[in-house]
């Protein structure tokens, strides 16, 4: 009978401990490049827009260029093929934004995405769309 009493007490203890102490593991490996998260375009007007993004993690190399690229078409939206705003070097990860002066065609869908460039790597964030009013 004592055995069952001990088992009962153990159950109580185990539940109490696990309720407070169990933690969640992370299966996603740390990247050696910067990861980007694109935010919605704001203040979109016929001749201007504000783009913003966040660098989610710390990379292993210094950032020599960062900014945004945009175009009317999705494919090949990159530094070589699209309009771009280059904000230059950046010393740390985190939020960044750019107020862009550009004449956008009305009611046309544009695509934009942020980029970060280091000595060896060019990272593009996910593409989002917006439409000039």
């Amino acid at each position, binding site marked *: *009978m004592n055995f*069952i*009493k001990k*088992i*009962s007490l153990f*159950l*109580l203890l*185990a*539940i109490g401990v*696990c*309720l407070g102490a*169990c*933690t*969640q*593991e*992370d*299966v*996603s*490996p740390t*990247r050696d*490049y910067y*990861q*980007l998260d694109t935010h919605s375009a704001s203040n979109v007007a016929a001749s201007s827009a504000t783009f913003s993004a966040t660098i989610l993690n710390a990379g292993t190399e210094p950032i020599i260029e960062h900014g945004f690229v945009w175009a009317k078409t999705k494919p090949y939206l990159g530094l070589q093929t699209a309009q771009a705003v280059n904000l230059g070097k950046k010393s740390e990860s985190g939020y960044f934004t750019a107020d862009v002066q550009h004449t956008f065609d009305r009611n046309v869908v544009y695509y934009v*995405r942020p980029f970060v460039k280091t000595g*060896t*790597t*060019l*990272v*593009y*964030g*996910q*593409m989002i769309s917006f439409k000039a009013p």
Partner: protein
Amino acid sequence: MVEASGDTIRGLVKHREGKSIYKSFFFKKDTNADMTEYSPESVVAYGFTNGSQLERKQLTDKKGNVLTAFAEVLVRGRLNLYQYQNQLYLAKQGEALMPLQKDEQNANSTKHLILINSLTLDCPVPEEHLAKMLNKISTQRMVEVVENYNNCVSPNNSITYNADKPWTTVEKGLSVSTHTATLDFNTGSHSLEQATFSQSQNLVFGAFFNIAFPRTSQRLSLQLEPLYSQEKHQGYAAVQEAQVKHQTDYSIAIKRLAIVSMGRYQLAQLAAFTPYLGVGLTSNIILSGQAIARIETESMINDTRHIETSITDEFLDSNLKKLYLVPTVAVGTGYQISDKHTMQFQIRYDLSQLSPGNKKDTSRSSTQLNSNNSIYLTAAYIFR
């Protein structure tokens, strides 16, 4: 217990459940004495104070075997009602036990009703009582029939054992649990099945019901738990192709309604503690499943490493299987804090891998979600 000589000896009878109570019992005169097993050959009757009474009887079991065994006395009076295993018997005072059974080959059999009528001719059982037993012999209804008859022919001369115990009791409560699980998908349509998911934890809120049958069993009961949870799971998959590497981070949010149905066996009643074991099924109903996949595609262009990021929420589509059943096992204990307050603590494990052989079945049209190593730690407050 009552010995063959007619002497009654008071002591302690070990509590047992199931068919074994009809074959023998273990008895000791006091807590320090050794247990001895007694069979119908050496003992006339045994029973519990204010509880069940069993008498040695010669009877015919369901298979037609004539044997001597202990039969439980449900009602004693001019007409007696006995139970041996799941078979009921009627017997007038001092007469042989007559099995109360339907003809199994004939659904319309009224053999049992004829027996009841023949034994209650001097005070017939009302038609409406018999009508209720036309299709099924119910122990509860038979107890009422025999009580009514005994009180009719000899008022206040009927004893129903365990009469103070209800046929059914329902414990009700509210519960909160932590649910620990690792997701796994069986799908032929996406690299989702290659993903590894981390063990995640979430809170689960629910209700708790324990349906007991005190007259039938003091230890067996049926436990039902509707549980609602909102879960978040993180997964990762890496796929290397010739020139390109895809790394995908999955973020999946699930709203789940789980309904647990368990048979529960109470191990003992130890002061404030009532430990138990449970075995049953969990019905998992996925109310909604929302998922985001962040895909990072890595390639080399002109000696520069390019990383392209895309995010999609379209991979966990409407084909997600909405309902699946898994076996579940539990161990727990009730804990009586005071006369009015009872808590229950339980660890329950869902055995989710029912058919590992089908894991990569590409012919599947639906996405099967499994929660591996799914453990619930539950604390419940029981209302009085």
